[in-house]
Every structure is written in structure tokens, then in C-alpha cells.
């Protein structure tokens, strides 16, 4: 799983923002603002981290049940895949 190379991640005044700049921008002309969690996941994905590694890392950071975190991460990834921001 990897991020779409035509999408740029930027931290703008503390906001996690994705800006499609490649051909994907033809359909997605604008920007996406992510939650804190989304921003963390995106940055880890960009570094080639796998889904399982991401979940492990986040469990260390946040005090949350694994099942809930897993569901959140999977939901986020699925939505990003549907929007073609992430490639499977």
C-alpha cells in the first residue's frame, strides 16, 4: 500500500493537508484536510510503513483499544483508496 505520488502532503498552520497535483487533480481539483490521525498515517505510509506497522506504532502512541484503532485505520485507508489518494 502506498500513497499516490501525484498527491502532496503539507502541514499548513498545523493542519494536515493533501493537495492533488498530478493527473488525479483533473478529477480532484482542490485539497483534503485530514485529522491528526489521518496525518500520522499518511506520513508513515509515505515512508513505506506497512499497515500492521502503522497499527503497532499508533497503539504505542494512543491509549486506545486495538480493535477500535484497527477499525479506524482500516476505515481511513479504505476511504483514501476509494478517493484514489492511496494505491493498494
Amino acid at each position, binding site marked *: 500500500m502506498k500513497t499516490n505520488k501525484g498527491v*502532496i502532503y503539507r502541514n*499548513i498552520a498545523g493542519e494536515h493537508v493533501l*493537495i492533488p497535483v498530478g*493527473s488525479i487533480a*483533473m478529477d480532484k*481539483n*482542490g*485539497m483534503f484536510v485530514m485529522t491528526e490521525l489521518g496525518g500520522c498515517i499518511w506520513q508513515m505510509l509515505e515512508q513505506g510503513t506497512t499497515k500492521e506497522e502503522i497499527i503497532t506504532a499508533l497503539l504505542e502512541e494512543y491509549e486506545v483499544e486495538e480493535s477500535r484503532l484497527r477499525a479506524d485505520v482500516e476505515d481511513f485507508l479504505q476511504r483514501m483508496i476509494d478517493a484514489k489518494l492511496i494505491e493498494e
Partner: protein
Amino acid sequence: MLFLLLTGGEPFLRADFARIYTELRKMGLMISINTNGSLLTDELMEVFRQYPPTRVNVSLYGGSAQTYRDLCRNAAYETVTANIRRMKEAGLSLKINCSVTPYNVQDIEKIFDFGKENEIPVQATTYMYPPVRINGEKYGTAPDRFSWEDAAKYLVLCREQYLTPEQLMYGITQTEEDTLDCTGETGMPMNCRAGRTAFWVTWDGRMLPCGMFPNEGYSVRSMKFEEAWQKVRDYTASIMMPAECSGCSKREKCAACAAACIAESGDSTIKPEYICNMTQRQEDLIKQKYGRGIRSDENK
């Protein structure tokens, strides 16, 4: 920085435009481009397919080949309209800009029709800033512009192309916001984005609050970028608008801004008569034409 407008002159004249544009886009900027649409090459189209701009604003100077020949002394109309269609077909986000002047006023309907046929929004203006920087120090004069009467008349004609009578009337009704904090005794500070969340850099590297300011600005070549930005912000914060405007119920709908005041009179605190008359006339024209019908509807 998030939004960037690349403009000119004509940006496509630069041999290195594609490279500059691509590198900036890859930095994650939302880039709009102002162009006259006459110099679109296959190479540039390929760049735009790979890195679509946020929007391309094409200036259309007329609605016919004849007007282009008269106004631009060239036969660019066919080229420009073909290029607009080409960009539209490629899926780019487009807007047509049109400065209506005494030389192309006969084409207003044609220009809007072209926009409708091709499903591209048209933004037209009939107000021309006095070209102070080009004209030397002559504030308030623009040899080729309309009288304020005609500027108002044709602006209404432009707005009639895409607004219903109800929308036109709504545009001139007073809202609560119009009357907030209206003392009319002191001028208000600038309240647009210029010099607060936006800046302009000229071709020779001078930073200004926006491109319509005729001032020198602050050179980003002779000082640090942050320093120039701070000076622009300080300058913007020091600007006061005319006292009359702060007490005016039309101010939200009026084009009188700091840059326009300076261009019209050389002083941001002096009310720009040309624009003031134009705003008033526009409202009168809309009321005369559509006011009664709508009022009787309300009485039903």
C-alpha cells in the same frame, strides 16, 4: 503559501514557463494562471494533463474575429477560442475574464454566449483602473475607459447575462451586515485579503499588498522575503479608507477599495467619485428596470 496566481503580461511568453510551473506545482501549491490563451502549445497541454492547474483564467478581448482584429491588431480570435475548447475538452478548470471597454462593448452578449455554449463561467468588468504606474503620476485618468454612466450601464448588461431579475434585485438590497459599524465619522482599515493573507510580487521582484497598488512596494531582492512581507503587512495596517465609505450602506457591494481609492485620487482616504457614481447608478438602473415587478410580487 497555498494559493498562487501566475499572471503577466502573458506568462506563456516565457520559454521556461513549463519548468517554473511544474516545479511550483510539485511543491503542493494550488496554482491559477491568467493567460490571453493565444500561446498554448502541445508541450504545455501535455504539462497541464500531467499537472492540472487549479484554474486557467483566459482573457477574452472580444466575441468575434473582427473585434480581435480591431482591438489586438491580430487574428487571434480563432486561435484563442480553439485553445479554450481544447483546454475544456482536456478537463481543465477554466474561467473567462473579460474587461469590457468602449472597443468591445458590442460583444458583451457574444462573449457570455460563448461561455454558456462551452459551460465556462464568464467574469466581466467594466471598471478600468487608472494605469497609474504606466501613465506616470496621473491618478484618476484612464484614457480608454467608459464614463461612469456607461460603466454602470454595461455592468448591469453583463450581470443580466447570468442573473435573474430577482438575483439582480437581491444584489442591491441592504443586509444587516451593510449597516454594521457604520459610523461615517472615521475611515475603516482595509478588509480584503491583500496585505493580510495575500501578497503580490511584480515581475521585477517588488512585493505589494495586491497587484492594483501603484506604489513601489518592497524589493524581495534587496531584503529578506519575511522582511518584505512584514513591511507590506505594516503598510496595509496603516491604510485607512474614506470616512464616507465606512458609513455607506452600499459598501459591501461597491468596488471602492484601498487600491482603487489610491488609483483614482492618489489617497486611500478620498472617496473615489467615479466608482461612487457608478455604484449608485447601477443600483438606480436595476431598481428602475426590475424594482416595480418584484415589489408587486412581494405584495401578493
